[in-house]
């Protein structure tokens, strides 16, 4: 059965906040830390209901990460929050040294990821966070595709021992899954069958990929769509299985083409010779724009671009 992109949307940050609150109600060890962005990241919901379990760390991401390490070493389950660009970049050393090397149970939430903070420009647009986090041993990297998946990811990451990074977009995303769609860390999911080529997509780009598949079908190209909600640990066997017999592979991510989903899929397929086209930001910084959609268009992160890449693969042409 194929997933479809619905017209209903929800804000993934709100979904996240609600899930965190439910988790906090269920588990008294859950604590939340934020770097002066709680109303944006939505950790404010925990602050309001359980103020004794919320820690405002101020604009000091490194201190936040290392403090969370201390909390984890004392049996707590800390969730730390900031914009993806700051929590992944500014606190990177602390995440690696204090958290990952000791495999501590800290959950890192990168909000307003990708180009979704469209107005603020490059300093606030994280286009490398998945590459950074994927490089770290012991780290789990999650990139859910819609609000349902966000909630399931929150519960799953709380169950999973060790550091986890969760990437969230800033703006509303369409529903793609349903309340009872299974979610398992480390497993890809086929969202649409196909026999010509496979498109691996993550996060906000899953809806885009599904739309591309619809357009390709109208041109007689049958594209399989696979949701990669876990970039690490990557379901390498699944990637290889889904790629077998395909004319080619397309990857789609709201992220640089260096080091993220595209590179992960290439690494998994390095023992084969199937051509892969990576759709993502072509190694450049973001920029200010008037809307998220405008920026996605500008950087070629659209269904049209995916269709183009897929068509080229089918025709056996090279990438531009």
């Amino acid at each position, binding site marked *: 059965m194929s997933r479809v992109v619905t017209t209903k949307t929800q804000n993934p940050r709100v979904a996240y906040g609600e899930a965190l609150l439910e988790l906090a109600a269920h588990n008294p060890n859950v604590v939340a830390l934020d770097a002066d962005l709680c109303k944006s990241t939505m950790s404010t919901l925990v602050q309001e209901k359980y103020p004794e379990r919320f820690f405002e760390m101020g*604009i000091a991401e490194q201190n936040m990460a290392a403090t969370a390490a201390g909390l984890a070493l004392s049996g707590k389950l800390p969730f730390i929050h900031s914009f993806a660009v700051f929590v992944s970049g500014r606190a990177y050393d602390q995440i690696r040294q204090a958290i990952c090397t000791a495999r501590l149970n800290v959950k890192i939430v990168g909000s307003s990821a990708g180009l979704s903070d469209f107005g603020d420009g490059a300093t606030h647009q994280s286009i490398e966070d998945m590459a950074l986090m994927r490089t770290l041993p012991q780290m789990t990297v999650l990139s859910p595709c819609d609000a349902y998946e966000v909630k399931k990811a929150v519960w799953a990451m709380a169950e999973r021992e060790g550091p986890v990074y969760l990437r969230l977009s800033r703006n509303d995303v369409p529903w793609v899954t349903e309340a009872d769609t299974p979610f398992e860390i480390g497993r890809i999911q086929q969202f649409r069958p196909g026999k010509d080529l496979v498109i691996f997509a993550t996060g906000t780009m899953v809806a885009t990929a599904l739309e591309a598949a619809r357009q390709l079908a109208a041109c007689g190209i049958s594209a399989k769509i696979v949701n990669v909600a876990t970039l690490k640990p990557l379901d390498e066997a699944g990637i290889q299985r889904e790629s077998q017999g395909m004319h080619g592979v397309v990857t789609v991510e709201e992220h640089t083409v260096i080091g993220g989903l595209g590179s992960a899929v290439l690494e998994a397929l390095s023992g084969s010779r199937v051509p892969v086209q990576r759709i993502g930001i072509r190694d450049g910084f973001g920029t200010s724009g008037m809307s998220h959609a405008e920026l996605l268009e500008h950087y070629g992160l659209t269904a049209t671009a995916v269709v183009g890449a897929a068509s080229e693969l089918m025709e056996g042409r090279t990438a531009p």
Partner: protein
Amino acid sequence: MRTTESLPELQRKACRLRQHIIRMVGVGKAGHIGGSCSCADLVAALYFRVMQVDPAQPDKPGRDRFILSKGHAALALYAALAERGFFPVAELDRLKQLGAMLQGHPDRLRTPGVEANTGSLGQGLSIANGMALAARLDGSDGRMYVILGDGEINEGQVWEAAMFAAFHRLDHVIAILDRNGLQAMGPTKTRLDTEPLSEKWRAFGWFVIEINGHDFGQILNAFNQAKAHRGSPTLILAHTVKGKGISFAENNGAFHNGIMNQEQFNLANRELEAALDGLQDQP
């Protein structure tokens, strides 16, 4: 060239900057009104009285340099640069548009007059230190002016930079702390209280001058003192009001990155017009 505006002229200029700030944000879109307005008087003093800069030669060696370390207050900087002639005022209408010169946070590659890319808090003072070292090597007398936010100083790097500046006796670094008491999520006192401020900076080896950040007499006097001071960097601790000049935004955390409705937009414009009118008759 340094301009020589009188105090009333500076007040008018600051009003004008605020008018630009409001127009750049417009109706229905978020903008950092609060933090831009709180430092508008300081920025006006710098660009229209204190700093030696030449819009025709934005890279002129030996110039004074300004870094807006609290980069989200870019609106104030853009307004001043436009008024000063670094680029046409019309560019202000294109703020944040795709391909525009004016980005959401300052970008030195795209905007004439911008000295450093800021927006990620806590980095500007370090950059100013580097510029000051270069100036010393080159025998240049240019000053490095940096405006920091009081929430921004939560960042550890700021204190690395503070130690460094004092250790290297960078007396051409003049930092201004825009102490408006509010950061993104609320009062600085309740998020991460960084008081006592003047004692901290003195303990780090800085010369500290405390002023009302909206009193041009005090502002100019502080800059004069700072420029004359030798042997250590100067921190001007400026007590300001977030959203100053816009009644509904003053001391209102909602306007850190707030949205105006049409009524508020109109009110802000009227208030600023009235303020300008009130200053017209002064020499």
